Structure formats: C-alpha cells, structure tokens
C-alpha cells in the first residue's frame, strides 16, 4: 500500500468536455427511463438487502423497512434500476482506470493529514452521506444533478445546501486536504 499526496492532472479529460458528455448521458437516461442518474439509492438497496439476509425478522418490525417494501411491492431490493446502474459505474470506472493506467491500490490523503485522520474522516463522511442522502432523498447525482436537469425545486434546494454546507465547513477540516 502506498500513500499518494499528489494529484496527477495531465491525463484527465477536459472538465467541460467531460461535463458535456455527462450532461448528454443524463439527458439520454431521462429520455430512456424517465428519470435521472443516481447513486445513493443503490447503497440504500444494498443496505436493506443486507439487513434482510442477516435479520429478516427485523425488517417486518421496523417502520423504515416496512415503508420501503410497501413502496417496492415486495420485490427484492437488489432488483432495482439504480443497483444495476451502480454495478455499471463500478465496471465503467474500472475500465476507464485500466485504459488510463490508474489502477492502483492506494490510500489517498491530503499532504498534511495523517492516515488516522483520513480514516476517521472517510468513515464519518460516509456516515453523514448515508444519513444526509436519505434525508435529502438523493445525493449529488440523484438530487442535485438530476434535480437540476429537470428543474426540480427540491433538487436544486438540495444542491445549494450541499455546496453551501461544504463551503461552510471546509475551513474546519482544511488540515485533511491542504
């Protein structure tokens, strides 16, 4: 395992071109499926499937899971559009990394951060995203980006809140990154 403190800039795609392509993909997704891209929904499906397999009796007594299975009419939480999409993301990113020679087991952190700090940050950050994306009914992809594309008031509100929140707290965690 190596630690990497440098971002190699040169090999990435022009951000505007990447954004344009991502926009077209989002548009195509809406045209085909009637809804945008997503990510946190798949994590939710995996979490529910896990609980289902290790403690299935718990599912029937907990309100959140009950509401979920009512909405999804008893189909497996893994037979879900976003689950298949995120499986694709995993493959797509892997292939892209392979093509651009970026496949590497690395633990990435800011130049002045300790490994311990980064560990705690990553796990806490993940937890916050897990909670926040459920509360906000979507993450950067499902609520902010897709919400912006369809001009949803709720989606745009979430987008503004994500960026505003990040800027508001950035100063306190600068040690992690700069």
């Amino acid at each position, binding site marked *: 395992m190596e630690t990497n403190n440098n971002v190699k800039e040169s090999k990435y795609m022009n951000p505007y071109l990447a*954004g344009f392509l*991502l926009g077209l993909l989002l548009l195509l997704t809406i045209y085909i499926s009637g809804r945008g891209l997503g990510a946190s929904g798949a994590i939710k499906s995996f979490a529910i499937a896990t609980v289902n397999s290790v403690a299935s009796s718990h599912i029937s007594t907990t309100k959140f899971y009950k509401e979920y299975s009512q909405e999804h009419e008893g189909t497996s939480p893994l037979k879900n559009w976003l689950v298949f999409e995120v499986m694709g*993301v995993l493959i797509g990113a892997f292939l892209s990394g392979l093509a651009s020679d970026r496949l590497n087991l690395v633990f990435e952190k800011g130049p002045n951060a300790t490994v311990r700090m980064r560990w705690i940050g990553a796990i806490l950050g993940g937890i916050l995203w897990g909670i926040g*994306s459920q509360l906000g009914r979507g993450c950067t992809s499902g609520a902010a980006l897709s919400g912006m594309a369809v001009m949803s008031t709720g989606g745009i509100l979430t987008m503004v809140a994500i960026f505003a929140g990040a800027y508001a707290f950035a100063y306190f965690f600068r040690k992690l990154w700069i």
Partner: protein
Amino acid sequence: MGPLVPDIISGNLNYIVAFIIGILFGAILEQAGFSTSRKLVGLFYGYDFTVLRVFFTAGVTAMVGLMGLSYFRLIDINLVYINPTFVWSAVIGGIIMGLGFVLGGFCPGTSVCAAAIGKIDAMIFIAGSFLGVLIFAEGYPAFESLYKASYLGAPRIFETLNISQNMFAFLMVLVALTAFYFVSLIEKKVNGEKLTFFEINKHNVLVGGLGLVLLTGSLVFTDSKQSYLKLVSDENFVKNYPLDEIDSDELAFRLICQRCEQLQIIDLRSEEEYQKWSFPQSTLFSIDNFFEKEPNLFLKIKKTKKIFVANDELTERKAAIMALKMGYKDIRILKGGLNEFSKEILNFEPIKEPKTPQEKNINRFRAKAKIEVAELIKNNKPQGPVQKVQKRALGGC
C-alpha cells in the same frame, strides 16, 4: 415519444440499459478525475475546480437539452420524475451531505468510482455510507417528522420563483459561465500561477462555444404548450384560419349511418358536461392531452377523420389549429359547435309551412335525425377521459 420505459423498453431489458448507462456514467466520472478525493474537494479550498466545471456543465447541458426534447415533443415531461420538494429535509439533508463532503472527500457516486480503481479511502467511505443508511433506517422514527415536513409536491423551480422556464434556464447558464470564469482566476491565484484575465485557448473556445449554444437553446426552446396557447390567443387569427368543417346535418348523418367509415369525435367540453351526454365514438380531450405521450398517440391514428367538438366553434378552432400546427392530420371542426348542433338537430323545431323542396328535405331529415341521434346518445356510455395508463417514473435515491 420518450420516455421509452416502460412501453418500448421494459422488464429485464430495462436493467440491462441501466447497467450500460452505469458503465458510461462510471467511465465519464473516472475520466473527469472524480476518482480522487483530493481533486473532488479541491473546489472547497480553491486549488481545483474540476468538480464545479463538470457538474455545472453537465447540469445545464441536460437542462437545456431536456427543454429541447420537450420543445420538439420527443419527450412527455409529465412522465419524467421530478424530485419532490420537502423543504427542510432537502436543506438539512443537503447541509449534512456538505459536511460529509469535506470530511469524507467523496459523494456516493464518486466513491464507487474511486473504489473501482483501487482507492482504499473510498472503500472506507462506502462502508461509512452503508452504516449511515442503517443509522437512518434504525433512527427513522426520530427523523420522520423532519423527513416529511413542509411537503410542497413536486414543483419546478421556475414555478416556485414565478418566472418563465426560459428565463430560469438562461440565468442558470449565465451563472455557470460566470462561475467558470471566476473560478479559473481563483484557481490560478491559489496555485500561485500568473493571472490572465482574457486568454484564447482550446479550453476557453470550447466552453465559450458550448455556452453560446446553451444560451441560445435556453431562449429558443420555449414551453411548447405556452407558445401554442399564445398562438391561438389572437381571436382574429383563429376566426379566419382555414379549417375543414362539417355541419350539423353531416355529423348527424354520419352518426346515424351504419355503413359509413368510422368517425373519431374529440370532445373538448368539460368532463362534467361530457359525462352528462356524449356522442358514440367520442373521447374526452383537454388541451393538456395534446402534449402527453399516450393521448397524443391517439391523435395519430391514420385515415380516421377526427372531429373536434365543443360548445362553441371558437374553442374547436383553437384546438384544431393547435393540432394542425403540431402536425396532426385529418382534422375537422363542427360548424357552429354543439350549440348549433343542439339547435338544428337535438332540439329541432320543424320549419312551419315548408315551401321549397330544400326546406321539406331539411324537415324530413332533421326530424328523423333528432330521434335517432337522441337514441344513440342515450345508449352511449361515455368512455371517460382519454386513456392514460402510464404513470410518472418513480425515481431517485
């Protein structure tokens, strides 16, 4: 007309499509550099604004693109998932995610990307988000009131702000372009590079060109419903527009006639009036239906004459002009509207002392038609509004 799911793409094919879209999504994110946390959080510290550039370019491209699809009636926006608005959970959830962003260095989609190419910090982040969902699930009773507070339905931002869709899109593109300009300056300053306020390079030409296209699109792609309604708001234009007409006698004849080819009557009255009485082979239709996927298919049935009926001819004319402008064919209107039809047929009073053979004919035909059409109407069960089986896509996270 889109969306293609569920009628054109359905069942397992839908999952295959999801998988392929995911592959492209992952590849684009990875190529853009979203597989490294240091690059992702760069925008919050000013050293790397890649995320902002990619995100907003994608957002405005898809936004204006969707307006374009809708403008050319390639998609029924009524079937597209619009994220619902729950004010407080959106704001507080968003702020929590923002905090999670600067702490964890990823968002869910990018963490999957980064984990795919071997970033260990991303794998830890994913484990965390997994835990987060479980915490939310277990603590749901505590979150529930916040989760469901101030529900506004699924309004669109331009409705909330009470401005036109074009205005919002135009401003959004403008804001994005302005942001792109200023963040480049910030980035240079933070990274200790030389500040240049104006520069012609490949980068800037690309973004400038795209910006111009999107700005134009945001103005050109008007809401088609609004622009058609505007077109028919000019009464003189509507009154003088050449349209194929059918008069009360002909309609009555065609209704009674057993051997004649089928008519399709498009009834534009209110649902209440329609339920009270309606013609056989008639379908209730509203102006909104013209812009929806399924009702719209119904107008496309070839070689059947579609007769627009409403109480007054002006309403018929407006709808018929809109339909013709949208490219539908074989459209007729009922001359004088149903008011005239009621007077001439349904409540027909014979001409006293008919003199000319023509008047005698009218008396004979209308007396017969009055009875037979009334009988048809009596036996007809209204079909109700035009069929709409498809529901809005369910979406999101």
